[in-house]
């Protein structure tokens, strides 16, 4: 993939992630300060198309954003270069997507 496409993908996913992260952090504060139990939280999320879409988008954006940034950091600060770095970062993206999807399914899917 060309540097221009990677640049575009990283900036576009950053734009998506910025509001999602703020909502996610707010949600954590509300859940903790409000004293919600795990069962109460799952009661709100299970079967919810909205929360599924919210965290599904979050996972996709993070799985694209993080490996591109990490690739740049590794490229600038180590001697690791070339195709092997790109392949490793693509695998990291797939791993993040897989772990994230598993978490989203766990809180959204009906028991």
């Amino acid at each position, binding site marked *: 993939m*060309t*540097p*221009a*496409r*990677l*640049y*575009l993908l990283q900036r576009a996913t950053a734009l998506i992630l910025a509001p999602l992260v703020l909502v996610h952090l707010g949600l954590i504060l509300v859940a903790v300060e409000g004293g919600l139990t795990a069962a109460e939280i799952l009661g709100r999320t299970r079967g919810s198309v909205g929360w599924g879409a919210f965290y599904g988008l979050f996972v996709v954006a993070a799985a694209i954003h993080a490996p591109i940034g990490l690739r*740049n950091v590794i*490229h*600038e*600060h180590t001697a690791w*270069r070339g195709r092997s770095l790109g392949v490793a970062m693509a695998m990291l993206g797939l791993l993040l997507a897989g772990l994230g999807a598993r978490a989203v399914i766990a809180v959204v899917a009906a028991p």
Partner: protein
Amino acid sequence: MTASPDGQGCLSVEVWRGRDEGRFQTFAVPHRANQTVLDVVTWIQRHAEPALAYRFACRVGVCGSCAMTVNGRPRWTCRTHVSKVAGANGRLRIEPLRNLPRIKDLAVDLTPFFEKWQRAQGRFTPTRSRAEPLAPVSPESPARKAADAGIECINCAVCYAACDVVGWDPDYLGPAALNRAWTLVNDERDGDRRGVLRAASAGGGCHSCHTHGSCVEHCPVGLNPTAGIAGLKRRSLLDLVGRGVP
């Protein structure tokens, strides 16, 4: 500052001697009114250490060959007055430019710098022969104004030495080469503007810039390579949909 025969005092000047391995050698140099850092280095070579290696040519800020690191900052030494950088204690520390291979003492090898100009396709591709009339270019067009804003680069490599990304990533083309590419992308007479844009946005190109702005801070002729690099980033994104170059 110690007293000198003319009553104006002496500067204490530490100068790097050697290549990658070396040491600082200290010289006492008479302080003069309106003295530049290049005057100081030249005085040392002529009166104290004939074997001192350094590079200069025009002495008036045009050729871009005398850049060195002065008290930790890259500067054009021929237009840098001692009074502005030495401070009240009259101390100077002069080293070769960062981010370039050292040759000897204060002279560095600029080969990587100019090779990256070529990698960025920083050369004009003509569209007319000398037998044809000059191309009419409106100085008021936005593209020409963008090109004019970056055209006065003197190739001194001060921005290249000041850039953190160049220090981290040996593949990075650097501010000067990308600034040159930006002027060509905006030059309606150039015959391969898309080629320049693609060369400047390939691996190690404009997308590697972190927008630290060190090039803007240090450019001795007041250019803004960061703005040109941002322009290249925008154009490379537009190029994804075929609109990078008019």
